[in-house]
C-alpha cells in the first residue's frame, strides 16, 4: 500500500491522525485558557493529567472498579476537579508563587499516580475504553469522512469545546467576570465580583478539563497506562495557551499545528524522506514540533495584546 500512496493520501491520513493527536492538548489547553484568563497560571496541568489518566483507567479496568468508560471519564473529571481545587487553594487563597506551586502540583500528580498505580494495579493495564464513533452518513463522504467523522468520541468533544469556550468567555456574564478578574481584579472587586470565587471556578474547571485530557490518553486514544505516561504533554498544553494568545480558536490552531508537525515528522521517518540522498536523523525530525512551538512563541510576542494583565498576580481585597 505504502508504495501506491499519493501525497494526497498521505496528507489525508495525516490530517485524520492530527485531529486525534491534538485532542489531549486541546482539552488541557482550553481549561488552562479559563484559568489564565482569570489571572491564574496553573502549571500543574501535567500532574492533573496524570491523575486523570490513572483514575480513568483504574475506574474502567477489570483490575480496578470495572466501571463503564463514561463512568471512567466522569471519575477523571472529579479527580481533576479535586486537583484543581487544591491548585486554587494554593494559588488563590494562599497566594503561592504560581510557577513554583504548579511544579509542586505536577510532582504531586506524578508521585501520587505512580504510587497508586503500583499499589492498586502493579503492572501494565489495558482496557476496553471509549471507542471510535462513525458519524452516520458524514463518515461515508469521500476524503472528509475519514478525516473528520471516523474519530474517537473524545476527539469530537474537544473540538466542539472550542466554540463553546469562545461563547462562554465572550458572551456570558460569567465569562465577562472571568475576563474582568484577569484584567483588573481591583475594578472587578469594586463592581462586586468575588475575585477569589471566580478564580476558584476557573482553576477547578481547568482541573476538570486536564482530567479529561488525561483520560483521553488512558481510556480513549491509547487505552493503556504506564507511570508518567503524559511525558510532558501538560507543559506543552500550557505553552499552547501562550502560543494561542489566550484565544480558544488560536489555541486550537496551535494544537493542530503542533500535532500536524508531530505527525508529519513520523511520516517523514516512515517514508524515509532524504535530503540530497542522505537520511535525516530521526532525533532531528522528532525535535521539529518543539522547535516550531518555540519559534511561534518568540514571534507571537508582539500580538499578545490580550494577555490577562493580572496573570500570576495574587489579589487581596483592600490592597492599594
Amino acid at each position, binding site marked *: 500500500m505504502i508504495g501506491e500512496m499519493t501525497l494526497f493520501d498521505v496528507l489525508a491520513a495525516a490530517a485524520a491522525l492530527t485531529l486525534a493527536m491534538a485532542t489531549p492538548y486541546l482539552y488541557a489547553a482550553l481549561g488552562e485558557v479559563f484559568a489564565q484568563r482569570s489571572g491564574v497560571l496553573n502549571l500543574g496541568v501535567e500532574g492533573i493529567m496524570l491523575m486523570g489518566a490513572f483514575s480513568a483507567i483504574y475506574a474502567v479496568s477489570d483490575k480496578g472498579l470495572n466501571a463503564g468508560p463514561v463512568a471512567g471519564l466522569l471519575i477523571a473529571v472529579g479527580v481533576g476537579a479535586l486537583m484543581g481545587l487544591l491548585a486554587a487553594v494554593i494559588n488563590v487563597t494562599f497566594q503561592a508563587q504560581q510557577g513554583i506551586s504548579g511544579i509542586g502540583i505536577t510532582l504531586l500528580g506524578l508521585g501520587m499516580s505512580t504510587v497508586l498505580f503500583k499499589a492498586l494495579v502493579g503492572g501494565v493495564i489495558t482496557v476496553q475504553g471509549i471507542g471510535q464513533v462513525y458519524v452516520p452518513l458524514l463518515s461515508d463522504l469521500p476524503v472528509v469522512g475519514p478525516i473528520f467523522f471516523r474519530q474517537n468520541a473524545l476527539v469530537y468533544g474537544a473540538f466542539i469545546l472550542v466554540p463553546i469556550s469562545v461563547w462562554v468567555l465572550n458572551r456570558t456574564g460569567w465569562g465577562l467576570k472571568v475576563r474582568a478578574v484577569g484584567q483588573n481584579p481591583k475594578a472587578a472587586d469594586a463592581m462586586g465580583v468575588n475575585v477569589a470565587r471566580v478564580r476558584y471556578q476557573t482553576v477547578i474547571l481547568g482541573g476538570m478539563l486536564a482530567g479529561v485530557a488525561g483520560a483521553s490518553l488512558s481510556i480513549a486514544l*491509547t487505552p493503556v497506562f504506564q507511570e508518567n505516561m503524559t511525558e510532558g504533554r501538560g507543559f506543552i498544553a500550557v505553552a499552547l495557551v501562550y502560543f494561542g494568545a489566550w484565544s480558544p480558536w488560536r489555541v486550537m490552531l496551535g494544537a493542530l499545528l503542533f500535532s500536524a508537525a508531530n505527525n508529519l515528522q513520523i511520516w517523514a521517518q516512515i517514508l524515509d524522506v532524504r535530503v540530497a540522498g542522505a537520511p535525516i536523523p530521526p532525533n532531528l525530525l522528532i525535535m521539529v514540533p518543539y522547535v516550531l512551538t518555540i519559534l511561534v512563541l518568540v514571534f507571537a510576542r508582539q500580538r499578545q495584546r490580550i494577555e490577562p494583565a493580572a496573570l500570576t498576580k495574587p489579589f487581596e481585597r483592600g490592597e492599594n
Partner: protein
Amino acid sequence: MKARFVSIALLAALLALLAFGGLVSAQGPVRVAVVMPSSPTDLAWSQSIYSALVAVQAKMGGESAMEIAVSDNMFRVNEAEQALRDYADDGYDLVIAHGTQYGTSLFDLAPDYPETSFAWGTATDTGADRGITNVFAYEASAEQGGYVNGVMAGLMTTSNVIGVVGPVPAGDALLYINGFRQGVAASNPNASVLIAYTGSFGDTTAAAETAKTQIAAGADVLTGSAQQVVGAIEAIQAAGGYWFGTQSDQSVQWPSTVVVSQVFNWVPVIEDMLAQRANGVLGGIAYNLTLANGGLTFKFGSVGIAPQVLVAAGNATEAILSGEIVVARELPE
C-alpha cells in the same frame, strides 16, 4: 601522619582478613540492587532484569539467600546516580545500572566503591581501559532474535508493509531493528519496512501515534522496542494485526496479537557475576546474550502460525546457531 598511616594499614588488614576469611559473604544473604529506567512490570526492558533477579533468588533459596532492592522509574540520570551511590554506601554486593544512559555516572562513581561490584547494561565497556576493575558489562545480541522475528513477520504480512516503532536509534533497540530488517529482507524482499523512532523509551502515547501512522500507511504487522511499545501493541491489536516482541514476553498481555517475543534471559549472567564476585573477581567481564548461549529465547503467544512460517523461523535459528547466517549489527543508511 604516622598514626594515620598505621590506622589505615590496620583497617586495610582487617578488611583483607574479613574478605579472605569469607566472613563478609558468610554473614547473611547476597545483596543485589538494581536501578532501572521504567517499572519492573513494564513487559519490556526493566522487567527482563527483574524477572531474572527473582529467578536467581528462587534458585538460590529465597530471600534468606539473596536480597533484591529495586529503584524503578529512574528516567532521570542524576537521580539514578544518587540511587546507585546509596546502594553502594549501603553495602550492597552487586549494584546493577540497568540502562545504557547510566554509563557515564557509573564510571564516575565506581572507583569510589572499590569493594562493590557494579554491572552496566546494555554495554560492552567495563571501563578496564580507565583502570576500573569493579564493573561488569552486559548486552544482548538482540539482532539475532530480531532476524528470526523478521523472517516470520515477512511471511505473515499480507499487505507487505511492516512497521517498526523504535525508541532511539541506539543500543539494543538498534541491534534488534537491524536484525529484524535483515530477517524481513531474507523472507520477503517485496515487503516495505517502515521505521520510526519516538525519541523516548517510555512515551506510550507517542508509540501508539507512531503505530497508528504506520497502520494508516498499510502496515498489518508491527514490532518495536522499549517499554513504550505497550501503546503500539494496543494500536495494532485494535487494527487486527500482529505484533512481534522483544526484551520480555509480551504475549502475556496480548496473547492473540503478539506472535512471538524474543526474551532476554539474564539469569546465567547474574549467576556468573555473583560466582565471579565470590571468587574475588569484582568486575571486568563483558557478557553477551546470544541464541547459542541460551540467553535469547522465544516465547510464543496463542496466535495461530502457519507451519511453513515456523519452519522458516526454525531454519533461521539453526543457521544463526551454525554460523551459516551472521546477522550484521550495523546496516548502511
